[in-house]
């Protein structure tokens, strides 16, 4: 089905024309994205302003005297009206300068980009690692459960994934950590004793085969890439369990829908094998909704994993933002929020582009 390159006349009609609507869509969406970013920055600014206390109060704590707080405020420039501060921040942001954290001191400027940069890299690394495991696995499982729907395999996978999405993610993390901690003594723990002995000793012997995965994902600039991957195994496993259900169920639902199409029945009547039909005929028509749900989950991997970061002590951007919100460090909050919003927008855009590119109706005009 794929390779007809040797047949002449491959450049069918409409190739060039197809770029135009695609580009138009991308540009339009980017424009809307900018508007969204602008609105996000206003919303975030107003929310932080609405929060009780400010950075000076929060950093100095409860025991600071009012005069000290006032002096600190002046040092931060909080005596200027909020609108002015916002506009000057905005002016910088438009030029790509997100300013410096309020923790900066004279002589020790902490640029927001310098604070966020390494953490953003960490976050993307974890997200990428998880995605590499989770996305293909989810799509494969989705395709298989769609193909063998109603079978024991289908029910088992569905039940398990339902369970993983109904447990809080920090709890999944704790359970994984527990398995690591108790790997050599599972049968002795309360949980181990509650299960029938054959089961707990079985689990115990499986666990003892497992390598001793690190429960801390503390990394720094001197961590090598191999070490990093090793340390991130548990976090990415946790996140995989968190996101896989959604993607898998969506893939399954979409595929079941597509499998009801006349062209799938046609495929069977053409004497094609089931696997070929699913992967060659059904999947290509399911990419658009799958891309949307994958984009949604990838965005989650970047913006929503603060809890997992905390549990595994991973210096990602989510924890940074929560800390910044707590301490009212506006420039950092703003930059994080904009990065998150931009991630969301870009991923959705990519999903839309995939939807267009994989749909010849949108790619090729008549």
């Amino acid at each position, binding site marked *: 089905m794929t390779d007809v390159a040797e*047949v002449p*006349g491959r450049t069918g009609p409409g190739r060039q024309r197809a770029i135009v609507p695609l580009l138009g869509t991308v540009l339009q969406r980017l424009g809307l994205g900018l508007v969204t970013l602008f609105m996000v920055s206003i919303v975030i600014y107003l929310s932080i302003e609405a929060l009780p206390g400010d950075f000076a109060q929060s950093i100095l704590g409860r025991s600071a005297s009012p005069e000290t707080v006032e002096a600190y405020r002046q040092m931060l420039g909080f005596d200027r009206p909020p609108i002015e501060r916002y506009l000057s921040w905005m002016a910088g942001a438009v030029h790509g300068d997100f300013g410096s954290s309020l923790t900066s001191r004279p002589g020790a400027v902490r640029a927001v980009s310098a604070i966020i940069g390494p953490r953003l890299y960490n976050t993307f690394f974890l997200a990428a690692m998880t995605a590499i495991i989770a996305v293909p696995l989810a799509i494969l499982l989705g395709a298989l459960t769609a193909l063998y729907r109603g079978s024991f395999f289908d029910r088992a996978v569905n039940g398990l994934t339902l369970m993983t999405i109904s447990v809080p993610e920090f709890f999944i993390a704790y359970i994984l950590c527990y398995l690591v901690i108790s790997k050599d003594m599972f049968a002795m723990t309360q949980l181990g004793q509650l299960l029938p002995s054959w089961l707990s000793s079985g689990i115990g012997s499986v666990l003892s085969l497992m390598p001793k995965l690190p429960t801390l994902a503390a990394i720094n600039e001197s961590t090598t890439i191999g070490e990093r991957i090793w340390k991130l195994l548990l976090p990415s496993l946790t996140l995989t369990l968190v996101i896989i259900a959604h993607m898998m169920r969506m893939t399954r639902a979409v595929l079941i829908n597509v499998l009801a199409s006349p*062209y799938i029945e046609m495929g*069977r*009547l*053409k*004497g094609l*094998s089931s696997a070929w039909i699913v992967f060659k005929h059904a999947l290509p*028509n399911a990419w658009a909704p799958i891309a949307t749900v994958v984009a949604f989950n990838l965005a989650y991997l970047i913006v929503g994993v603060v809890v997992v970061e905390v549990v595994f002590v991973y210096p990602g951007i989510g924890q940074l933002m929560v800390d910044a919100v707590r301490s009212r460090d506006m420039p950092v909050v703003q930059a994080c929020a904009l990065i998150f919003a931009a991630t969301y927008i870009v991923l959705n855009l990519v999903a839309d582009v995939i939807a267009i590119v994989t749909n*010849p109706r949108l790619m090729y005009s008549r």
Partner: protein
Amino acid sequence: MNASKSEPRQKGAPLLQIAGLKVDGFSDDRWHPIVKGVDLRLERGEILGLIGESGAGKSTLGLVAMGYAKPGCRITGGSVTFDGKDMLSLPEEELRLMRGSRIAYVAQSAAASFNPSHRLLDQTIETAVRHGLLGRRLAAARAVEMFGKLRLPRAAEIGFRFPHQVSGGQLQRAMTAMAMECRPDLIIFDEPTTALDVTTQVEVLASMREVVREFNTAAIYISHDLAVVAQMADRIMVLRHGIAVEEAPTRKMLAEPETEYTRSLWSVRAMSQAERPETDTHLSIEGLSSGYAKSVKVLDDVSLKVQRGRTLAIVGESGSGKSTLAQVISGMVPVWSGKMVFEGQVLPSGFRGRSRDLLRKIQMIYQSPDTALNPRHTVEEIIGRPLEFYLGLRGEERDRRVVELLDMIEMGSQFLDRLPGELSGGQKQRVCIARALAAKPSLVICDEVTSALDQLVQTEILKLLDTLQQELGITYVFITHDIATVRAIADQVVVMNGGKLVEQGSRAQVLETPQQDYTNLLLSSVPEMDPDWLTRLLAERRGGAIAAAN
């Protein structure tokens, strides 16, 4: 015409033999018999026409011939032997390798049956390549050759198009090419031309027939249209409720049908109603232009008059603008220029500008009763709503009126609680009619109201409409592509093409003495109950073309 047609087949085992076949279908939590013991025999190179209404089991039968039971169907008895093999006991893998290679299938809707994501050529050669029968290059060459034989334009290139890039008629030919790719022994044609316009249908039929005969391929041709089947088939079998009611060679079947049922299959063609006397103008349209999204012009300078209590038929093929015209009248699509006068007053463009009473007076019945009825409303709610809304009827009075209306459409009060999903196609359309009548309209627009229905049901609906018109004196604007329907119901006829009004006049004028080439083409493309009609028509047209060239 073909000599082989009347010749006796070579003796020996038939290509396909079906005996005592029984198939059950699952619906409403139960298994119902769909096919109740059918015997069928097909020789090599023979074409069998399978005809019947929807639900007669003809598609199921066609698929069983491939050893394939539709999802929700199970074969409960009988045998299917193809080329000496018992198709019902062969392992699935062996069946799979026969499908597409030895038995091919051409589906009703080519647009839905081609995978929208892949190019036509890829799909055409897929089976041959996957089954390892042909190399990719050879298969592609063969496909291109077949495209040419089926008279697809630019045969060498069209394979690189995606399904949405070619027209319905071309898709149907490409699907035939796909079926022919492995040179199968048997092709199942499942209503291949039903979704096509008449003028296109002629072309597609002609090219299909040519190829099948050239390669001496056996075929089962499934259709509800006897006239179409007659052009293709050597022999015809009539199915009803899963039973073969009649089987005979084509000419014999047409000439002397044995059963009443067979005769009734073309009764709609026999229907004809006396022209009503002229009356005053009910609705007049002058210089009307309209379209969608402010830039796509669909109607161009249309003017016509509808007389009170009579029926105006608007005829045209898909894309002619006839449905848009209906929507402009009902106010769903705004007028760009021109004006409409209804009962002596200018009809505002767009329904928002119309009073409730005006909205009440013009009602519309839609082509597809499936989408025109809210699937979550009961029949009572559907018919009762206009009564409440326009006439302010409440309680008992409303309930009584609903039952009256149900009686009027020849349905009983037992249908009150049914949801549309629990009704047959004809019943749904009747409910639509009742809903329109509930508003006590003076003008009803019927947009292809019978085209989704079986022949018999069509006849009933048309008769019902006719009766209602006589009782209530309603004016009809009847939009259709089917000339038989026009003949059955119209007083006046308007022919549309490409958004323009081509011809207009009384039924007799337009149908019997068409003035325009297009009208002529349209009329001549309507299949006739004559096995030689297509051959003759093609010859005539070719002659005409030669004459024109000269």
